[in-house]
């Protein structure tokens, strides 16, 4: 039945003969707070950002409303000294860091989700709480904690020094490795939680059916378990990939000046450089890249009929 038939069928609502369509129209008022919210905090700022990205920076960091495509040229790498790959590299690096972070989080989250789901109900939520508790601590504080843990005098760095992986008296941060550690620990709960809820509801009869039909362990995982966890995995990927693309606290505190991500670039434009129009252009570039990434994921997801 097409939806409009469904919407126009006769129903009785507290003794009154009406249709779902009429009822929905009556309920439109309840939409008002959300509509104001979206309009005021998403649509208007979003459009301002688009407008801003075509403006110019004044001499003292003010916004000059001259239409120009200069910001987008800069985003593609054309600067006063000719073309350089710096901005493109930052964008690609951000994409790569977000991708690797998401991937490692998934690989770590699977065994963790299965471990938690296999605990008896009484201890199960205790284990889940242990995963979630760090996430109640402020991100900046957690990141500073990593700075200390990765400092030259701490056991991790000492061990790396002893193994000859690190020069004596140097720490594990600032480095790309420190950024990855920070990012992965920050985002792991976002993958574990939705994945756990999928694993907890797993239909084990499919796992038995796969074994009954001669499947190996690997085939059983990919045909009977993995497809069932896709809904949770999708939520986890979205919750990790999007914020990881725009993350600036962690690369700022753990990556050092040489490991800039697009989040840091945007932050610099709005603070240090006071170049809001260019910052707006980079923000939009980030948004477009994120949407492309999600579109690719959705497309691939459709092939297996799950998203």
């Amino acid at each position, binding site marked *: 039945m097409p939806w409009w038939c469904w919407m126009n069928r006769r129903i009785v609502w507290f003794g009154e003969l009406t249709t779902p369509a009429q009822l929905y129209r009556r309920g439109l008022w309840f939409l008002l707070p959300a509509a104001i919210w979206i309009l005021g905090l998403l649509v208007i700022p979003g459009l301002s950002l688009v407008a801003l990205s075509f403006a110019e920076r004044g001499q003292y960091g003010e916004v000059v409303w001259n239409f120009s495509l200069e910001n987008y040229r800069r985003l593609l790498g054309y600067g006063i000294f000719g073309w350089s790959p710096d901005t493109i590299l930052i964008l690609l690096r951000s994409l790569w860091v977000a991708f690797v972070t998401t991937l490692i989080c998934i690989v770590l989250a699977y065994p963790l989700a299965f471990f938690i789901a296999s605990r008896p109900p009484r201890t199960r939520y205790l284990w889940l709480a242990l995963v979630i508790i760090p996430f109640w601590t402020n991100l900046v504080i957690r990141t500073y904690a990593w700075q200390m843990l990765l400092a030259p005098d701490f056991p991790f760095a000492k061990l790396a020094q002893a193994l000859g992986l690190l020069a004596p008296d140097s720490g594990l941060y600032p480095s790309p490795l420190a950024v990855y550690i920070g990012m992965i620990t920050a985002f792991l709960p976002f993958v574990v939680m939705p994945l756990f809820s999928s694993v907890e509801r797993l239909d084990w*009869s499919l796992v*038995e*059916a*796969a074994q009954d*039909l*001669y499947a190996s362990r690997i*085939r059983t995982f990919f045909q009977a378990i993995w497809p069932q966890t896709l809904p949770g995995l999708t939520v986890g990927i979205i919750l990790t990939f999007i914020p990881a693309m725009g993350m600036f606290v962690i690369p700022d505190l753990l990556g050092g000046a040489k490991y800039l991500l697009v989040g840091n670039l945007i932050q610099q434009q709005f603070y240090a450089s006071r170049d809001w129009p260019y910052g707006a252009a980079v923000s939009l570039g980030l948004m477009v890249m994120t949407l492309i990434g999600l579109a690719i994921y959705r497309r691939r997801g459709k092939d297996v009929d*799950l998203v």
Partner: protein
Amino acid sequence: MTVATRPPATGESLSIQNVVKKFGDFTALGGVSLEVPAGQFFTLLGPSGCGKTTLLRIIAGLEVPTEGRVVLMGQDLTPLPANRRPVNTVFQSYALFPHLTVRENIAFGLKSRRMDRLEVERRVRYGLEMLQLERFAERLPHQLSGGQRQRVALARALVNEPQVLLLDEPMSALDAKLRAEVQVQLRRLQQQLGLTFILVTHDQDEAMAVSDRIALMRMGHLEQVGTPDEVYERPRTRYAAEFLGAANLIQGKRLPMGFEAPFGKLALGQTPPWDEGYVAIRPERVRLSEVEPRQNGLRVRVREAVYRGAYQEAWLEPCDIRVRTAPHPTLQAGQELWAELPVDALVVLDE
């Protein structure tokens, strides 16, 4: 159904040897031994919790027995994992892979075994044809009705040509009318293929309709094993008599010649092995008449009569016996007549 008839395999069999299964303190199976000849339709019948599904899962390899062995055609299956046993299961929930089409579901076991592509195609076509699923080949399980899903589950198991097909209450999700149809189809399929089928069910009608032999289970033990008519006509215990169909149980004492029931003396076809115990008679075996029968006749009054269309049921007093007879002439409450408990219909129970 266009299926080539195979000569039924004979002799070799599935053998369950003293299988014990404990879940913590709970004993699900307390030492079960069974022989199932090849090519038989064998049914494990019993109420929920009697261990029938556990036994089936042990045969499938989805459960590890605490003690005992499962031997198929002389080969000990006990140490083999489920994916290396030449048996396939039709699950109660069917357990079809929701992301795979009917065709892919049926091909699953064949692809697991890395079968040649053409052979996979041939067998899938055969499976689709055998269970009339050609029209649904490209559909996903959620687009099918319950009966169609069940057929996919059957096809998915049968294309692997298992030596034993295990069916775990495959009809419990179907409505009564469809269930009766599927029972007939299942029986026909089993006879055409000449395969060993092991069915688990709690439905005694279903067990009677399809089985070559029935194993009646109770609390982790086999209560009685036999052909449907053996188990129905000659139940050995009160439990067997009452689980399969309705039975009148008469308690009494052994006499030198026969049996003393609370309502009088009865002649028996055999001497009871006890001094005090039970004999059973099926309601449809009690004969009613206007004249006094030569043997085992009782003067009775109809306490209550219920017209059921195809038959009528009546409760007689003072002997408290239930009768099932043809619906005409209609019995009336209060009517007095003679009831005969024929000697050959009285079954002496073991206890």
